[in-house]
Every structure is written in structure tokens, then in C-alpha cells.
């Protein structure tokens, strides 16, 4: 157990003394939304508990800590600028240090230290997505296309990575990839509380990127990768951009001109790591709205009010028990009610969770989930 002084420092570092128990964090929390009244996930209550009991004691009892998607809504809504999400990450760190982890999480962290990816796959498997493509090595180009682990390994998401390649080639942009040398960005790892592995990944990535003098810009497919590169990699020399920002710039300069029709009703789902956490709302919309023939519509809950899809914060690997309904289902149902043909996303995780929901709800003929990259690629 921490002594009083250490405890104070710990609480002060998290800024928890300022909490006024307003409950805005809990009321905005998507996981509170889906957990039951009997066993609620209540982040406000957690902040209060941490204030009143040592973090370590608390962490050991809180198996539900793994439910948080680290979407950041709580931190965004908190009027006292407390970061309740960081409390979750801190407590998870204690669990990681103690080694009291659910098996699924343990596997992810183990794979990171062995394979430098969370998917327990050998690094040579990273070559799968670009089979048959002639691509430059990242060190030889100004733009590095960073695909990230999940799009590299997942067969559905590999299409995403290939769409990105196709778009960049059509735009005539000089770019390269790290191929099998690419390693995990560590965003999810940090969110799972493994700050030690994250530090190792950060060091390795920083060395890799900074070692290639030609690289001016890095374009990521996932807002999760972009988030950590942007906010947690202080030593990176290159400018890192999520593809939506990169392509919105191409659009503004006139280089990118979607010409073919995409005559569908499209609703855009804001990914938390792009929107709520990094305030990118307009760029993805600009891209979609530039497409001829598109019938662009908005969810009632959009932008700052968007609903999390439950894909982040390690939730790719762990399921919530007893959840009455998945958020992704709510999202899909809303889209269908609006008569949308396509739910557009700008994040590989959102794509997987929403597509799963479409399948689970037997709505495959009715609505389709597509990444903006895929849509754009069909129009140029």
C-alpha cells in the first residue's frame, strides 16, 4: 500500500482533488450506456473510490477496468479538466505490473514483446497485404504509409491498406512502406496500461522513423496510430497525419478530384480517436461531400456527441459480459432507420465493429460499412 505522501502525489498528478462529482463523465460514458443498472461501469464512482482508497487496493478488485474503450468522452466532458480515462489507464498499469490480467490481454502483451504486434503473428506475415504490389521502401520516399498492425493482418482490412496504396498511386505521390519492418505504434498497448512495452515501442519506432532522413510525412490509416504518434511521441521529426487530413489537403489543393458518381446515401460515423480526442470533424466530411452523387446525411449523434463503437482501448481483444446491447448495434440500427446505404468510417476498428454488428443483426443486404478510403478509391 502506498504511504500517504505518495498517495497524495499520485492523486495530484491525476488532478483528482478537483472532482466535483458532477457525473458528466459517467453520463457521457458509452460503457455506462451498455452496462446494466445492477453492475454499472461508473467512471465517476471510480474517481471517487480512487480518491478515498489507495489505487493499488482498488485496482485488484476492479476486473471491470477492462471494459473502458478509452474513448475519452469522460475527459472531454469533465468541467474540471480531470482526465478520468487516465485513471483507468493508471489502474490498468497497476494490474499489468502485478500480472493479474485476463488471459486475452496477457496474450496481447506477450505478443507485443515477442512479435512487436498484438495479434500473435510472426512479423513475416506483415508482407501479406502488399503481395503483388511493387512498393518502395519507406527510407526512399518522402511520405511513409504506415498501415498499422490490424490492417496489415486482417483480411478485411487489408483491402483498406490496398485502397490507400491505390489512391496514393493515382495521385502520383512518392511514398514508401516499412513492410515487414513496420512495428506496432503502441497506442492500444499504452491504453491497456502497459507503459513499459509502450516505451519500448516508442523508442524503436522513433529510431526507425528518424533514421530515414527522406521521410517528411507519415500517413496513418488508423486514428489510433495517429493519436499516439501525434500526442505521445515527442521526438518524432516527421509530420504524422491521419489519412483524412492528408487527403483533405489534396482535395483543397485540387490534386484530389473525385469524379465518378457514388450515388448512395452515406452516413458518417466519427471515430473517437479522430473526433472526440483530436477534434478532427471536418476533414472526413469534406472528403465525403466532395464525391459526386453522394447523399450525405448525419447521425443525430455526431461530432462531439458521437457514440463510441467499442473498438478502442483494448476492446478489440476483450468482450464485455452481460452487456444488454452493443453500441455498434445501436449505430447500425440508427443508420438503417435513416435509410443509409453506407456507414462511412475513417478507422479500421470502427470498420470491424460496425461490420460485425451488421452481420449479427442480419442486415447485410440493407446497409454496408465502408472506410472513406474505399469510397474515395472507387471515385477517382
Amino acid at each position, binding site marked *: 500500500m502506498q504511504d500517504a505522501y505518495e498517495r497524495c502525489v499520485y492523486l495530484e498528478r491525476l488532478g483528482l482533488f478537483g472532482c*466535483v*462529482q*458532477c*457525473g*458528466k*463523465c*459517467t*453520463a*457521457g460514458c458509452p460503457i*455506462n*450506456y451498455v452496462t446494466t*443498472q445492477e453492475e*454499472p461501469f*461508473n467512471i*465517476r*464512482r471510480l474517481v471517487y473510490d480512487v480518491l478515498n482508497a489507495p489505487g493499488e487496493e482498488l485496482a485488484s478488485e476492479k476486473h471491470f477496468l477492462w471494459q473502458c474503450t478509452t474513448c475519452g*468522452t469522460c475527459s*472531454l*466532458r*469533465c*468541467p*474540471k*479538466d480531470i482526465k478520468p480515462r487516465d485513471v483507468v489507464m493508471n489502474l490498468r498499469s497497476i494490474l499489468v505490473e502485478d500480472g493479474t490480467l485476463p488471459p486475452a490481454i496477457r496474450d496481447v502483451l506477450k505478443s507485443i514483446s515477442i512479435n512487436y504486434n498484438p495479434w500473435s503473428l510472426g512479423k513475416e506475415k506483415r508482407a501479406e497485404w502488399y503481395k503483388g504490389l511493387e512498393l518502395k521502401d519507406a527510407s526512399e520516399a518522402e511520405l511513409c504509409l504506415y498501415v498499422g498492425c490490424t490492417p496489415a493482418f486482417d483480411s478485411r482490412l487489408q483491402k483498406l491498406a490496398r485502397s490507400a496504396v491505390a489512391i496514393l498511386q493515382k495521385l502520383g505521390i512518392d511514398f514508401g512502406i516499412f513492410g515487414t519492418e513496420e512495428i506496432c505504434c503502441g497506442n492500444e498497448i499504452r491504453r491497456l496500461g502497459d507503459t513499459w512495452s509502450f516505451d519500448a515501442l516508442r523508442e524503436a519506432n522513433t529510431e526507425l522513423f528518424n533514421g530515414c532522413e527522406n521521410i517528411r510525412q507519415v500517413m496513418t490509416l488508423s486514428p489510433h496510430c495517429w493519436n499516439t504518434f501525434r500526442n505521445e511521441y515527442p521526438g518524432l521529426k516527421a509530420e504524422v497525419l491521419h489519412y483524412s487530413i492528408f487527403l483533405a489537403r489534396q482535395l483543397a489543393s485540387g490534386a484530389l478530384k473525385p469524379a465518378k458518381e457514388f450515388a448512395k446515401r452515406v452516413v458518417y460515423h466519427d471515430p473517437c480517436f479522430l473526433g472526440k480526442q483530436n477534434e478532427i470533424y471536418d476533414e472526413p466530411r469534406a472528403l465525403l461531400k466532395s464525391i459526386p452523387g453522394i447523399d450525405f446525411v448525419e447521425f*443525430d*449523434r455526431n*461530432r*462531439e*456527441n458521437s457514440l463510441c463503437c467499442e473498438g478502442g482501448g483494448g476492446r478489440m481483444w476483450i468482450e464485455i459480459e452481460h452487456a444488454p446491447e452493443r453500441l455498434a448495434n445501436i449505430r447500425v440500427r440508427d443508420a438503417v432507420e435513416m435509410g443509409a446505404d453506407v456507414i462511412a468510417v475513417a478507422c479500421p476498428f470502427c470498420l470491424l465493429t460496425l461490420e460485425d454488428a451488421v452481420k449479427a443483426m442480419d442486415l447485410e443486404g440493407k446497409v454496408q460499412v465502408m472506410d472513406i478510403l474505399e469510397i474515395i478509391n472507387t471515385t477517382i
Partner: protein
Amino acid sequence: MASKRIGVYICHCGVNIAQNVRIDDLRAFAAGLPGVRVAQNYMYMCSEPGQEMIRKDIAENRLDRIVVVACSPRMHEPTFRNAMKSAGLNPYCLEMANIREQCAWVHKDADVATAKAKSLLAAAVTKVSLLEPLEEREVPVTKTAMVIGGGIAGIQAALDIADSGFKTYLVEKDASIGGHMMQLDKTFPTLDCSACILTPKMADIKNHPNIELLAYSEVTDVKGFVGNFKVTVKRKPRYIDENICNACGSCAKYCAIAIKDSFNAGLSKLQALHIPFPQAIPAAYVIDPLACRYTREGTCRQCEQVCKDLNAINLDMQEHSIELDVGTMIMATGFEPFDANRKPELGYGRYENVITGMEFERIVSASGPNQGQLLINGKKPKEVVFIQCVGSRDKTVGNEYCSRVCCMYTAKHAHLVREKLPDAKITIFYIDVRAFGKGYEEFYDRVKGEEVYYRRGNVSEVYRKGDKLICRGEDTLLGQALEVPADLVVLAVGLEPSPGARELGQLLKLSKSPDGFFLEGHPKLRPVETGSDGVFLAGCCQGPKDIPDTVAQAGAAAAKAIIPLAQGMVKTETMVARVRAEACRACGYCVDACPYDAIALGEVRLGRATKTAAVVNEVLCKSCGACSAVCLSGAIQQSGFTDDQLLAVIGAIGKEY
């Protein structure tokens, strides 16, 4: 220089200083310093017995220099100067060493604190022996006041000053006085009709022989100093002569251009040619040049035709400026409601039935767009939700403060809903209820008793479900998230400083507190004064407050503003910059450096010859020292802080004791 006879007085400040600085050591040390004739210590030097000790020693030991070793001079320098004056000593032969804030309070270790106190004491003794007696001077006062801002604060202050017999200008930027209070329906906690208690005061402004109302006007420049300000006021063109117009309103019927009615919080429309509201003072119409077809496109002039007989309309009216001499000024620029668009998650601007508290006031007001009927999209709302603390107590929008009135106005609003819609379900989300004023807790109790559900916790987001809005918050007493459906959501927006107050504050060199409102002279003891002599604060420009506090503060500001006018003379700064003309090379650096325009180059006599040198206007000089810091020749020196004195202080501090 004859040797000085110095008295040193060390204060314990109760235990504040004594518990961490060894007073006896310090006194013995002081007694051994050159020139020190008396060294004493006392529990509270600022108390009457403490001051008496100094006065007695001056008389008995013929002391001519005093050092007080105590707290910050900010508070008590005037105290000790007065004590010296009453004992016949020049009050500028005083030096204070601050061993409370700079030693006792900041060092944990008594040895360290005591050693530092010795250095500061020695430096003060060194400096005091180099000080010269200074003369205080007085100049006559322009016996006129100016109040800026015509809300309830400005109205009350202007009436009070005028009643005491002094001419008062009231400058209001809008076309009518009245401010936000005029927009309110009823006022908590007594539920008086706001307009009914305000309009008589507005009429008094118009009819008072000592008040000159300058509506539709703005202050654009301020020069001078307390007692003798020169203020430039820009008079914006109304395009209608307020002295001729009898507010018959015939002209407005012919104006085809519609604009948002800002008095009704934008909820209704009026013409480009309009009167802001029926009880407006000046009771005259005005034309909005941004909307008027003639001022924008050069054609129309319909209205002029209508008013041919009176000929009050003059579309060629030009903006002009006037310069006014005033002795004192009161700032009463009020507040602006928080812009709810800055909290997008609450749905304002996205859903029509999410409104602000100010919009609610207009909707329920009998003079409002619905003649007082509470209708949303033509229907009576069945479920009404209020959300408190919107834009207040919220670091994410930079407003850490509590806006103080929104708890109570929300209670008032809930009461008004209950009065108009007996069957409505009323829910109020709150973090804390602050019912601090007289009769406020009682009012809060009463409102709760009217079947108003107070839920402890705040709303995180508002979204649509079917034809209802859902307010999702947590009831933190239950520890459960809560979804309350609503037909009407009212946001209790907080108060922010009025946007125009910023430039005005710069003109008058007023400081702001971290919350952005004007900073008072001292939070407890000088609550209506400012750092600029002769400028006082009233109402919400100093911080959010309700009407009772606003009126009380306006009265206090008026009383303070009257003092110099009644005295007829004001003291000018004593420790002013002085120029040694023989050393001045007329480079003019000091002229540029002076923020108060107190220095100019001029011809001065040096013996029989004349030469060009810097000349200080001692009345304007504020003793800031900017000039002496830039002067390369050491020709300009600030009295009481000359280079010699400061170098001696540095030398004394550098020594080991």
C-alpha cells in the same frame, strides 16, 4: 550630509512573523547598524499602540527616518506615513522591509528566514538614510463624473452622483439604457416584475437636471488623471434626432427591412428602423445602418417622407466625437451571457427546443415574442429540463468561476413554468445549489415544494429520440445514469465580461482578474476601487452578481466617485521622475518609454542658457520608473528610487551579516 537619526520597528504580526523569524536577534542586529537610534519590536506595529510608539519616539528621540520591518508596503505604507505626518515628520522618510511575505511565510527554516530578514533590514536602513523629504502637491478637480454603461449598475450610480449635486455623463453603447435587467421577466427571490422596478429609474435618468445621457455612444480615448480626465466619446449616428423624435412610430411601418430583435434575444424580428423596446430611454427610434437599405445601397429614404412634418429623420447624419472633462469615472459595462454554442454536446443551435436562460426570460415575458405564453413550436411543453452551470465552473471553456445568479434564476424559471403549466414535469440538473442571498434559500425551498425535481448531477449530452430530446446525466446521489425526456431544455448559461469592456479597460489601464472581469483595488477592503485612481467599478463588470448586489455596489462606487469631487482637490503622485537637465542629452528615449505621456522634450533654463531636455509633467507621472530605466545618461531619476539609492540597497543586500 548630516548623520541621520533612524528608528527601526520590528513587527511580530501576531505569530505570522514571530514564529519563524527570531525577533530578538533581529532587534539586536538593528540596534548595531549605523545611524540607528532606536530599535523596537511590537506585536502589531500597525495597531494604534504600535503607531503611537513611533510617534512618541519621533518626539522624544528627534528621529528623522523610520524603518518598519513588517509586511508588504502595499497595505500599510500609508498607515505609517500618516503616523509620521502626524508626528511632524516628512512621510517620505519611511522605508519598509517585508519580512512576512518574503521571509516568515516562504522559508521553513528559522535560521534562513532570520538571516534573510537581517539582509532586508540592513538594506532598508541603508536606503532610508539616503531618502530625501518629498513635498505633496494638490491640483483642482473637474467637478463632473462619467458613468460608462447604462445597465442597472450605471443607472443607479449616475442617479446617486447626480443627486448629490454633481453633473454626470452616462455613456451607453446601445440605443437605449436598461441593460440586461430590462430583458428579465420577473426577478428572484421576490418575483417583482423587472421592467416595473427599472423603468422609473430610467425615466429619472432622462429627467434629472444633472445627468446628460449619451446613448448610442462609446468612449474611444481617455487622457489625464484623477480629477482631470479628458474623455473622447464617439457618438454613433442614430439617423433620427432623439431630441425631435416623439416615438410615434409612424415611420417604422414603412421600413421593409427586417432584422433580428436582439432585445428579444433574437427570437423575433423588427425593422431596421425601430425602437429597441417600448419603454426605451431615450424614447426615440434608431436606424440600424448595417440593415438600412439607404445606408447600404443608397436608395429608399421611405421613412424620411413619413416624418416630413417633424423632420426628425436625417439619413445623412454623421458619426462625430466630443471631448469631455471629468473628474472621476465609473465602469458599469456589465456582462454578456455565455455563448451556449461553445458546449456543443448540450445541443444548443442543433435543436430548436434547447434554449438559454436569457431566451427563456423573453419567452415568458408578457412583452416578449409570445406575449408571455410558454409555447415551443406552438405547443405547450410537457416535460421541461433545466441544466445548471453551463459555461461556469468549467475549465474547458476557461471559466473557472461560479456565475452566482444561475442557480437562483433557474429556480425562478422553474417556478414560472409551474405557474404557467401546472401539469408539466420539471427537472433541474445541478452540481450544487448556491442559494446564498437574503431570502434565497427560502425561495429555493418554495420552488422545490412546487414539485420540481432537483437531480444532483449534471447533464453530459442531449440527443434526440423520436420527437423528444433526451437529457442524459447521472443522478450522483443514486449513482445511476439517468435519461430524462424533454420538450424544452433550458441552459442556465453563466455570465462573462461584456466584449467591449476589454478595449475600454486598456484605455483606462485597468487590470483584470484571472476570470476576465475587472480587478478591484483589494478584494476585501477596496472592492469598488481600481488600480487607476479616480476610476471605480459597479455591477457585473467586476464579477457576476445579482441585482441587489449590483445596486449596492453601484451606490458604493458612486460614493467613492463623489469623494474627490466633493474635496475639490486631489493629491498628485509624489515620487515622480525628476530630470537633471545638465545631464540630459535630449535623446527622447524616456518620452517613448513613458506609458502615461508624462514626458516631453522642451526648452529648459540652465543658469542663463537654455537647452533642450526632457521635461516631466509631474501631474501626469505615475512613478512607474520606465523612464529612468531607459535613460542612458542617468539624467532622469525617480524620487525615492534613484540609482544611488538602489545601488546602495543592492550593496547592503550583498553583504554578509
